């Protein structure tokens, strides 16, 4: 049963590690489907994590924290929108700027407000999202295999984990079964056609960015209020970029996004698990190689060696209305 236990534990940490990626990846999905490149996912997640933990620590409420995370993250998304939609600035430059402002301001404000070297105070019970035990999980715990899968793998995650996975079908439904989704996808492919139909390209793109902000806010809140008990500086550590890689890997589709994030989360979990242990045949794999694997895979995918990743056609191009 040792091997089975090890597998369950690895998959369990796979889920934990994929959740922030999944939320950020879906966030990027809304914005890129609407034609706005967003390499500022990292920064928005970071401010979300900071605002969430800070507000939760001050108001002693996890839900005020979550709300604040979303609010600040949306505010940053609006800055991105102001620069790249209203002023037709370069979307990538704007995204880079947001990552910088986020990285600097979370440390400065964290240090000034809490004086703990850029950290927020450790969050106690009620200030963070604690694990939820699914009904019956305790009862079936001793049932071999299935019971373990249910009680250890599926049960015992925080509410945000279940929310993240619920967001997958929800996002699919929004994008492919609602009028808003149809228009959102259209504005990423052919904004001029949307404009001709009398729908505001700018307002539609702003709404897409609001969705992005909400989801990156939740992703940040998950990092600082569920996975960890407080904010640590630079705690996103490149997850925003991995989410971007996952988005390309998923070819801008919600269900694929979930599998891409689970794959990248699995690689991460595996690299932690395999640290120092030699594998049969291959021998000892350097941790760094496992960490770089998502990026390497994405480059190979982008090069078209394993299928072609075609981004939304109007992505990265500011829309100039004909007058």
């Amino acid at each position, binding site marked *: 049963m040792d091997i089975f236990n090890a597998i369950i534990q690895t998959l369990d940490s796979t889920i934990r590690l994929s959740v922030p990626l999944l939320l950020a990846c879906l966030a990027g999905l809304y914005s890129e489907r609407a034609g706005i*490149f967003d*390499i500022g996912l990292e920064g928005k997640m970071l401010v979300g994590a900071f605002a969430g933990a800070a507000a939760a620590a001050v108001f002693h409420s996890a839900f005020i924290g979550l709300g604040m995370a979303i609010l600040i993250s949306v505010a940053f998304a609006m*800055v991105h929108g*102001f*620069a*790249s939609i209203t*002023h*037709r*600035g*370069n*979307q*990538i*430059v*704007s995204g*880079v*700027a*947001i*990552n*910088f*402002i*986020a*990285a*600097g*301001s979370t*440390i*400065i*404000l964290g*240090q*000034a407000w809490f004086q703990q070297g*850029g950290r927020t105070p450790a969050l106690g019970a009620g200030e963070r999202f604690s694990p939820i035990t699914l009904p019956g999980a305790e009862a079936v715990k001793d049932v071999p295999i299935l019971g373990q899968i249910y009680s250890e793998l599926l049960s015992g995650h925080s509410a945000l984990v279940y929310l993240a996975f619920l967001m997958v079908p929800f996002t699919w439904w929004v994008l492919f079964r609602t009028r808003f989704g149809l228009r959102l996808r259209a504005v990423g492919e052919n904004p001029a056609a949307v404009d001709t139909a009398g729908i505001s390209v700018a307002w539609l793109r702003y709404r897409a960015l609001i969705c992005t902000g909400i989801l990156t806010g939740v992703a940040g809140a998950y990092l600082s209020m569920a996975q960890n008990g407080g904010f640590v500086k630079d705690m996103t550590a*490149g997850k925003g*970029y991995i989410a*971007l*890689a996952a988005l*390309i890997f998923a070819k801008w589709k919600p269900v694929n996004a979930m599998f891409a994030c689970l794959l990248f989360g699995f690689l991460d979990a595996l690299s932690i698990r395999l640290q120092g242990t030699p594998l049969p045949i291959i021998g000892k794999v*350097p941790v*760094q*190689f496992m*960490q*770089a694997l998502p*990026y*390497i895979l*994405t*480059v190979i995918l*982008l*090069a*078209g060696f394993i299928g072609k990743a075609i*981004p939304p056609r109007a992505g990265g191009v500011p829309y100039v209305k004909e*007058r």
Partner: protein
Amino acid sequence: MSTPYAKLPAWADYGLIPLINLFVAFVVAGFVVLLVGENPFRAAVILVEGAFGKGTGIAFTLFYATTFIFTGLSVAVAAHCSLFNIGTEGQAYLAGLGIAVVCLSFDSVLPWWLLFPLAILASAAVGALWALIPAYLQAKRGSHIVITTIMFNFIAASIMVYLLVGVLKPAGSQAPQTRNFLGGAELPKLNWIIELFGAKIRSAPLNICFLLALIMAFLVWVLIWRTKLGYEMRTYGHSPKAARYAGISETRIIITAMMISGALAGMMALNPTMGDQHNVAIDFVSGAGFVGIAVALMGRLHPIGIVLAAILFGMLYQGGAELAFEMPAISRDMIVIIQGLVILFAGALEHMFRPYIQSLFASFSPGAVGMEAVKGKGA
């Protein structure tokens, strides 16, 4: 507004507008200082005095500027060809490997004036090769250069961590870095130049790389505005279609521009490794590649502008260190915010104030800004 950005006089375009953007960035940064509970005006005074008040401060400012000139030029060369090279960071980081190989092999044998050219070649070659792969993928397979260079930054970081923690670390040492270079790999300091003006310098790492950076700035100017290759790059950057029509090979121009960009990024590694630390350590680039983006945007992609912008950022880095010392509430990370704001206002919101300035100019003399001509065309 069908031709939204009518021509402004050159001094307004290249001087006034960047200055206004910079000013706004600093005003917003001032609000952050207020939020922290400090006086922004006092902070500004400390910053400027820290950077230029003493000889040591000036030397440090120019030392940081050296690094940023290289990365700024790197971003700019690619940008002239409409390629957004976000990979400067990774190219510079991996170039440290080239320097490590050259220095660790020859530092006991060769004097600095033989080792330095070798190290320049090695760093430039590694940087260029690391840029070659994304360039090739963009030119031949159509993968987006921004995404691939981001990925390559992370891959470069993983490679360097692997090498510095394992292969390159001397036996028995704990720190993830190479052994210290011997005398042959230590570049001569330039502090005596500042001392000529009567300033006193205790210790600052300003070194001969500063001159190399200035030479490179001049060469980039020659390349972009005085050679056929530069003309082709600018043509491609302006309109890929026109370039194709003119018979310019898309593949060749993308790959050449990116390799030059990578080589410049790679040379940045000389300054902190051979000029200051005398080893190759983990994370020695520490974000200078990204500062290059701000520097290139601020300097309007022109070498003179880039040198000035690099000095401005050098000042922020040096003054920021003093600021962190004088005002404990503000750490050096304040620079990161300022950097981000400069990138935002000078880059993404570049045109925000332009319409106001245009109408201001137009109210003085309509002919000077070409407003009449535009109106004539519209009618």
